[in-house]
């Protein structure tokens, strides 16, 4: 998924852009759209499956934030690592997990990425470097840094991207991790998705100072990026990734977006009133799907849309047609070495 292409007009990139290979640029452009579209439609279908009860427990929709996962993962290699969040479907799909197996995971089937053991908040696919989503805000940041450090120590030039939300920058372990990563020049890119809210709490009501300032405090280069524009995110991520790969250490990207959908699908029923419909409508004006779609010739866009519909239709069939796990296997994988301890009745 790696591209040298440079689609960013900033000074920092003009020089590099001379190298830009227009064909690869076009293919990146289309690929970014494909990823955004895939995530958008995947989430819409997943929400249908939540409504129809196929997916139990609901999901945290990534709708409207797709540009971040698409842009960052386009700058990563297949063997690079990522860690993800409770709102992680986009990261997992963008990093290359099979949408069918992802959907099967959400439906709790044995064919799922985690064999039905993880669900929406824990999807992992070590085969493509997805170390896992995490339900605890910020908790995956040190795990990402440790994996990045270990890759380097074992001689690989692998880079790790750690996704987390604006809420996570108030979590001590994330700030401790910034310090460790800077101190040990760890090849990790911290990607903060600032979507304006932590559940119902506005970023500005929870964050004193700035998000980028928290990176800077530890000597970590930190930039604010338009999180609605896949190509802007890609450009910033590509720079951070190449710095990390070259041994330049960590970076922090604050990707500014807006959560147009629910914090979690339970909001569809609960209907909390922490923001106005107008505010949400206004935010919808800038949609990463349209921003990237407008950059493609209509036929190209139409073809991609059709391919994705077909892919997702197959994915839904695969997921819903897959078997449920056997209750007797509930303790499988509790210990990596197969240790068996006592059941609940002795």
């Amino acid at each position: 998924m790696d591209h040298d292409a440079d689609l960013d007009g900033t000074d920092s990139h003009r020089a590099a852009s001379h190298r830009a290979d227009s064909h690869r640029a076009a293919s990146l452009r289309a690929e970014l759209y494909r990823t955004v579209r895939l995530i958008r439609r995947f989430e819409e279908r997943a929400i249908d499956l939540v409504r129809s009860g196929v997916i139990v427990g609901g999901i945290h929709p990534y709708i409207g934030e797709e540009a971040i996962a698409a842009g960052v993962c386009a700058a990563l290699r297949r063997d690079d690592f990522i860690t993800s969040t409770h709102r992680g479907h986009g990261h997992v799909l963008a990093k290359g997990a099979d949408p069918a197996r992802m959907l099967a995971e959400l439906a709790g089937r044995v064919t799922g990425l985690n064999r039905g053991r993880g669900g929406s908040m824990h999807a992992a696919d070590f085969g493509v470097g997805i170390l896992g989503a995490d339900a605890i805000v910020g908790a995956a940041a040190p795990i990402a840094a440790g994996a990045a450090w270990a890759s380097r120590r074992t001689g690989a030039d692998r880079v790790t991207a750690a996704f987390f939300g604006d809420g996570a920058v108030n979590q001590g372990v994330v700030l401790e991790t910034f310090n460790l990563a800077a101190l040990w020049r760890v090849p990790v890119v911290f990607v903060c998705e600032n979507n304006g809210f932590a559940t119902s709490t506005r970023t500005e009501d929870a964050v004193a100072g700035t998000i980028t300032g928290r990176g800077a405090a530890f000597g970590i280069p930190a930039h604010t990026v338009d999180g609605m524009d896949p190509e802007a995110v890609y450009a910033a991520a590509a720079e951070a990734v190449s710095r990390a790969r070259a041994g330049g250490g960590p970076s922090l990207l604050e990707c500014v977006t807006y959560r147009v959908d629910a914090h979690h699908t339970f909001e569809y029923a609960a209907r909390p009133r922490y923001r106005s419909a107008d505010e949400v409508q206004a935010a919808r004006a800038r949609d990463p799907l349209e921003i990237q779609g407008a950059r493609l010739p209509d036929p190209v866009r139409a073809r991609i849309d059709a391919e994705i519909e077909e892919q997702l239709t197959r994915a839904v069939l695969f997921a819903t047609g897959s078997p449920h796990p056997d209750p007797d296997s509930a303790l499988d994988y509790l210990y990596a070495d197969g240790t068996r301890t006592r059941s609940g009745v002795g």
Partner: protein
Amino acid sequence: MANQSYLKALNRALGDEMARDPAVCVFGEDVRSAATNVTAGLLTRFGPQRVLDTPISEQAFTGFATGAALAGLRPLIEFQIPALLFLAFEQIADQAHKLSLMTGGQARVPVTYLVTGSGSREGWAGQHSDHPYSLFAHVGVKTAVPATVRDAYGLLVAAIRDDDPVVVFAPSGALRRREDLDFADVAPVALGVGRVQRPGTDVTVVAVGHLVHDALAVAEQLAGEVSVEVFDPRSVHPFDWPGLAASLERTGRLVVFDDANRSCGLGAEIVAAAAESMRLVAPPRRVTRPDGAVLPFALELDRALQPSREQLRAAILATVGSAQLAGAARG
């Protein structure tokens, strides 16, 4: 006399205490928008100085509440997930709990930690399904697990008025229960006082939290065959040992029904205490989660690791049966 929900009981208890005592204040994530409904209406009633939305900084706001308590306030912290207590574990077990003794009695830390939705949430997977009350009983933090709407109100009021830190677990499996009652008639429930939810003569089933209702259902099913007494400890630390001993005096047989991991769980403590010094005519039994259980996501797997009514039924019958055998052997 109205039909009230468990969540409403928590909301009423908190509101009533805030009205009664200006020192009571609330910290937590999304408590102003009342994501869980426990804090519904409190912001409007008591204002932003008493209802504070916190950043996602569990360690800091837990310690912050300790400091506020040392300065004379009586904070309640709402935690959205049981696992968040793990993040604040040092601040609770090593700071709040230890300050009174370590300062030679100078410090009082009247803080209530309320977990709205403990145990499995079906479909929320491994990091949202813990039921860690045994951990707090072990370190010695006062801990309550209300099973009924009435006790949700009475125990939360008692926890808020208590001069020590108290953890209150409101099990997901109990949040949607309803009862006809008038909160004005409900008295605080002293910590350390259990309740016989159903009297019986053959066997005592100690059930914790939402499992009390499953135990009552199983007792009802078995009504003809076996006379089951259902004992609800209500608070797990301090524990009502005299109440349990009195029940075993009547029945002489014990089954513990506990939604915690088996090893070193509350069920172990109850069985051990009974085996040491209470009347038992048959070997006691536990129905718990497996050792070190992590609840998997898929519903079938999640349920397979929770203690079930079928398991309880079998344990009761085996205990009564083995008791008869034991009786026979002895006679």
